[in-house]
């Protein structure tokens, strides 16, 4: 996983609630067997018309938002399917942080597996960021160590994050490697379970 410490990047506003993972990355891009290359499908139906031509009005198609690294979006971002292709597509496009009032559980969890930082802020601060982001070419600073977002006008918003998740993201730790350190505990659990639930062993 990519480590995330501090990010200085352009911010782009997407003022829609309930942006689901079907919108983030539509189904036709899920047939890949790779993690890479999904940027082409990010927000596909919002970015492109039926003929595959870029919609000039869509925020991420506008030159002043080119290269945005932070997205600020409406409530319940990432609801719907468990597809990890959603954070993969965002990362592949260059987005490293999404700010919203709330995230769907599975998407939120998937972000932490990939070094994409989901930041939860109160509604009025999300609104303030949306307003400041509007014109484009505005930079924000997201500092995970300090747990702050500094808006284009210099307002500092503090955010909460689970300390274990923060630590792993700061260091880019591999969850499987961590868990395998507990392999003796897993062995022991399995031995006990085999005795107490033998019917599961010969299924």
């Amino acid at each position, binding site marked *: 996983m990519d480590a995330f410490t501090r990010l200085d990047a352009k911010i782009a506003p997407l*003022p*829609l*609630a*309930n942006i*689901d993972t*079907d*919108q983030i990355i*539509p*189904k*036709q891009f*899920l*047939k*890949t*067997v*790779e*993690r890479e290359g999904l940027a082409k499908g990010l927000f596909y*139906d919002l970015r492109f018309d*039926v003929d595959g031509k870029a919609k000039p009005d869509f925020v991420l198609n506008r030159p002043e938002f080119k290269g945005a690294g932070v997205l600020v979006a*409406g*409530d*319940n971002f990432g*609801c*719907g*399917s*468990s*597809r*990890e292709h959603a*954070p993969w597509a965002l990362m592949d496009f260059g987005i490293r942080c999404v700010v919203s009032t*709330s995230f*769907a*559980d*599975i998407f939120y*969890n*998937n972000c932490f*597996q*990939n070094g994409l930082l989901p930041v939860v802020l109160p509604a009025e601060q999300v609104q303030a960021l949306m307003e400041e982001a509007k014109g484009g070419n505005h930079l924000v600073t997201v500092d995970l160590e300090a747990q702050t977002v500094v808006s284009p006008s210099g307002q500092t918003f503090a955010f909460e994050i*689970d*300390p*274990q998740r923060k*630590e792993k993201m700061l260091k880019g730790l591999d*969850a*499987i490697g*961590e*868990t*395998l*350190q*507990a*392999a003796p*505990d*897993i062995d022991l*659990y*399995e031995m006990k*379970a085999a005795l*107490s*639930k*033998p*019917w*599961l062993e*010969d*299924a």
Partner: protein
Amino acid sequence: MRPMPGKTLYDKIWESHLVADQDGESIFYIDLHLIHEVTTPQAFAGLRAAKRAVRRPDRTLAVADHNVPTEGQALGVAAVADDEARLQLQTLERNVKDYGIEFFPMGDVRNGIVHVVGPEQGRSQPGMTIVCGDSHTSTHGAFGALAQGIGTSEVEHVLATQTLRQKKSKNLRVTLEGEPIPGVGAKDYALAVIREIGTAGGTGYVIEYAGSAIRALSMEGRMTLCNLTIEAGARAGLVAPDETTFDYLRGRPATPKGAAWEMALPYWQSFFSDPDAHFDREITIDAGSIAPLVTWGTSPEDVIAVTDRVPELASFATPDKRASAERALEYMGLEAGQPITEARVDVVFIGSCTNSRIEDLRAAAKIVEGRKVAGHVRAMVVPGSGLVRAQAEDEGLDGIFLAAGFEWREPGCSMCLAMNPDKVPPGQRCASTSNRNFEGRQGRAGRTHLMSPVMAAAAAIAGHIADVRDFL
């Protein structure tokens, strides 16, 4: 000394699967890992790159469901026309072979939608922890199992360690009391719950469903309800196991037999919420107050009774909600204030992990029998598995659907997410028994109305959204 407080069903499953605590995160054991072609290729690639093994291939079961065509399955994967889908299916075949995982390939009568197959084979059992790289894994909670959808990185984690790292969720109990009116069932209950708490209402919770209306539900109905729990934002839904559960399990291929059954039964019976268990939130709904429901918009919380009108924009509390509703109306091609029964449908889809089980097909067939699908409607039934399809054929349901003008197709996820060739064409309106009405879900610019199998059957006959009570 104060007595120990009671435990919820969720608390009991959670505690009985804890392996270790590591840096404040719990590592808990996974009893059953279901896998499919779409969310696993990158997980197996990760395992290979790190030279890791699959810890418990015997606790892993693979199916091909998301992108399989719903015709010509007997021709095998090599005949799948879509190059990318074929490669993904072949990748799964190679992975299960390399790692010794049981697999029901496309065309095998046991294959079908992963959340139909697990229960049907008796693999999903009470008190278990179950995961799958698919959000509708919540379905298996119908058995009193903690079942949740995970991402691909976690699929790799479970393959390598047979555990998951997580923090415990909060407990939410939804109690449904009373008897439903005719034409109302589990799908309507689920839509009523989502209408009540919203699509983010369950975020951070595990939902337990309780009450007399839940006890009266069949296993198929409980699966429908638990399936849609994710649409209320909760990763898992639960129903405590009872005689209905045990009757369903008895005699299935993977359920214990004889002495093993006698040993398993008391264990399963220990999974219920204690009377004094603490729930962080409680909701009660009168089952008798629920009318047949449909969605009008592009979020599963956009729910109205079939007798209602499409909501007026002024009825939405905040500017954000109003803006979302306006966008949804435009996408759906509907006017605020119009009766929803005026919405003419072009496509009817009976299928998906929500509603493709034998009971769903029986209920729909009852409405369809002796009637004809409206001339302008394309209607299709996609059974949830090869076994459901075979049973329906034994019961003559295929004949009823075919005589009415439905297509009778082969199993898979099909038009629920339209990864395979079954798609709602742009601008067309679909009465669907599936689980998501998101923009583009069933095909780009396709318009989805979620409803129960009997309501979808009624829509097929009427040619527009219709009240099933007129067809009973």
